[in-house]
């Protein structure tokens, strides 16, 4: 009798405790969602608001003076079209190539019977912490003849050590017996890779693919370094960057007091907002499709030996 009552109370307390926990977690997450989603909504509102009117500030969730002008202004630039094409191309090509190459390397260095697995891994990891810096990197790519070409977007950053580790760790987590039994049945390494490892690694591939795709989509710095003068190799993000940094300055001097020709005009906040929305839209649209793979999550630690 007493025992069951105690049990019941315990259970009840447990439920209340649970409720409180869920409540607190829910609250924290809700706040987090608001914090992350507000800037996006705000940018949307500003992008649909009249440019001059936006200068006054004070726009929060809804536009004050509805207009589509800002989007027209952005889409009017022909360079945006080229930019879109190259951006999509580099994202697709870059993701496919980088992922396949990274996966192959990861497969090799995750094999237990490969004696150089450790030292090679270390070599890769070193690149995460030590690099030559901007100028040497630039000179290297220049002397390799990558400047003014599309491939500078793909090849120099082909293997990212971080992604490699992510995939390798995941592969290490797969049971060794799978490989062994396949060997028994006479499969070579390629067959094992293709028939066993790849299907099992889908979640991690999807995750890494998203990393790579987002990285490729958002990259603009390499465009500026290597293809500044190449209008036909510009990307969407670089065009956006140019739009964002074209600010009216007669000659950038705090002291100049005379107009240089016709003074340029500030790219208004509204146009910037419109450009921002347009460039991040495609990649945001990708997320839902890859979302289901994230359930498996990323694990980098816990290397089994």
């Amino acid at each position: 009798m007493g025992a069951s009552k105690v049990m019941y109370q315990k259970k009840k307390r447990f439920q209340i405790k649970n409720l409180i926990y869920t409540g607190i977690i829910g609250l924290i997450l809700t706040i987090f969602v608001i914090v992350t989603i507000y800037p996006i909504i705000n940018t949307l509102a500003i992008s649909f608001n009249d440019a001059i009117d936006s200068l006054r500030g004070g726009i929060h969730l809804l536009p004050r003076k509805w207009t589509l002008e800002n989007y027209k202004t952005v889409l009017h630039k022909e360079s945006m079209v080229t930019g879109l094409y190259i951006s999509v191309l580099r994202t697709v090509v870059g993701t496919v190539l980088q992922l396949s190459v990274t996966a192959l390397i990861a497969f090799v260095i995750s094999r237990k019977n490969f004696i150089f697995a450790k030292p090679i891994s270390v070599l890769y990891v070193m690149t995460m912490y030590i690099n030559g810096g901007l100028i040497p990197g630039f000179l290297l790519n220049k002397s390799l003849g990558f400047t003014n070409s599309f491939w500078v977007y793909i090849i120099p950053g082909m293997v990212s050590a971080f992604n490699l580790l992510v995939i390798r760790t995941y592969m290490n987590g797969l049971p060794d017996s799978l490989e062994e039994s396949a060997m028994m049945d006479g499969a070579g390494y390629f067959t094992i890779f293709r028939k066993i490892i790849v299907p099992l690694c889908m979640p991690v591939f999807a995750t890494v693919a998203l990393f790579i795709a987002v990285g490729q989509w958002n990259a603009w710095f390499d465009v500026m370094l290597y293809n500044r003068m190449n209008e036909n190799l510009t990307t969407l993000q670089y065009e956006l960057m140019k739009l964002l940094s074209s600010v009216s300055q007669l000659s950038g001097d705090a002291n100049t007091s005379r107009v240089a020709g016709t003074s340029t005009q500030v790219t208004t906040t509204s146009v910037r907002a419109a450009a921002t929305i347009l460039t991040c839209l495609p990649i945001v649209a990708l997320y839902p499709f890859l979302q289901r793979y994230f359930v498996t999550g990323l694990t980098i630690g816990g290397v089994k030996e």
Partner: protein
Amino acid sequence: MKKRFIAVLMCVMLVTALFAGCGKNDDKNSKNSTETGGAAKEIKEFTAFFDRQGTELNKNNVVQDLIAEKIGAKCKETWLTGQTAEEAVGMLIASGEYPDFINYTQQLYDAGALVALDDYLDKYPNIKNFWNEIQWNSLRQPDGHIYSIPQFGKINEKLMDTQNNGEAFWIQTRVLKWANYPKIETLDELFKLLGDYYAANPTMADGSSVIPFEILAYDWYYFCLENPPQFLDGHPNNGSVIVDPSTFEVIDYNTTPTAKRYFQKLNEEYKKGIIDQEFMTMNHDQFLEKVSSGRVLCMVEQHWDFNTAEEAIKTQKLNDCTYVPLGITIDPGMQEQYYAANEAMALTGGLSITTSCKDVEGALQFVNDLLDPEIVTLRSWGIEGTDYLVGDDGLYYRTQEMRDNAVNADYKASNLSAYGYFPNFSGMNPDGKNAMTPDTQPSEFFEGLSAEVQECLTAYGAKTYVEMLDYNKIDGMEQPWYPMWSFSNNLTTETPGGLAWTKMGDTKQEYLPQVVIAGDFDESWNKYMDAYNACKPEDFLKEMQEEVYNRIEKVQGKDVRPAK
């Protein structure tokens, strides 16, 4: 199955490796080849990079194509993107590949990236005559050659300025009107007026509170906070130092008694709540938002920096909230020099041609042709009939629609091409009738004024904004050092003076806002002065002093250095 997979993978790799080698385009100037292969007149295409922020024009820009048709050349201009000027130039130097045209910097000269122009000049009369002999000579580098063509400051016949684009104390017309257009000369009078007006009218029509005095102290715009002491003492904008015209002595305006008085005044007013309480945490966009709302009664600013905000005020029909300039001094009865008409004699920097340029003569021909009277008008006014009209009296004018187009970014990118960083005139158009630019055309200017501004200008006996201030003409022969900022802007941290200049800037930016908001002004001021003196400003002043003597020597041909 297995084989096919391997094959595909191999193929991908092979193709990748292949393309890496052949995607190379080793000659970005291949378009520039001067061979006339086709029957059509070939248009040379040049490239330019300017280490400033600017707006890239669209392909097939109407005016640009028209100019190209007329002179057989065009130039693709690119601007700073997401890097500092120094990083961008450093990057170019590291790569050794340059655009054809570039803005002169000391680093480029040191890297041997620039082409000496003096031997070419005689062949290009428009360029040759753009500056006079003295001015050209002042551009000679230590090796005796000229590497750049300064783009700005060439006055054709006379200055036509209607708007003071530079710095002043800007005040809303409604404040002056409310006090019945009083004569405001000094800092004390100004703040008294602001205080009185604010007490009587603390809010805007929509209930938001008025900001009597605003200070922009963000990033490099902090000059709005730090350089008024030079103006308050009645000196022109040398930008980094005061130069005494009689003794040629360089004076540091940061440590003058006036500087202390000015910041003490700001400190008092801040405590009274007259100065925006959050000025030190505000960025440039937020500043423009505040000005756009019409809430800011008064501020020190360069006009070109807030004219977009003024446009926003106009669209809200807050016509009594636009600004007129005041020439404020520290004591009554002084001549102020906020506005100074000046054509410098000692020049620095400008447009340079790089060693990557395959066709230096063609490039110079292009610059030369851009200075042609017809082309100059195309650059500054646009196309006749589309962008401006010509009256019976030969004066150019614009309809409202044309005026709106001229400030519409979208329209400008596809239609107008000022080539703003190539040499251009200010003052009169070569036709001797019109102004060089629409905004300095007197008739154009009057059309655009609101009744409120007209009333205010009239009350002070002025017809233009410039006439609100004392008129000063600085003779380039008499004061050849003016403006000194053309030297200090090019200082790098490689010289002791340049290093001091950078440190001084950082120190001022850090301490001045603190001085303004300090509870105990004197203590805060002394702390600031200690930090300031630790930057070794004397190193900087020494280099500036030397440059003043150099410029006098270059232009007047006499050595005025004190006898040792």
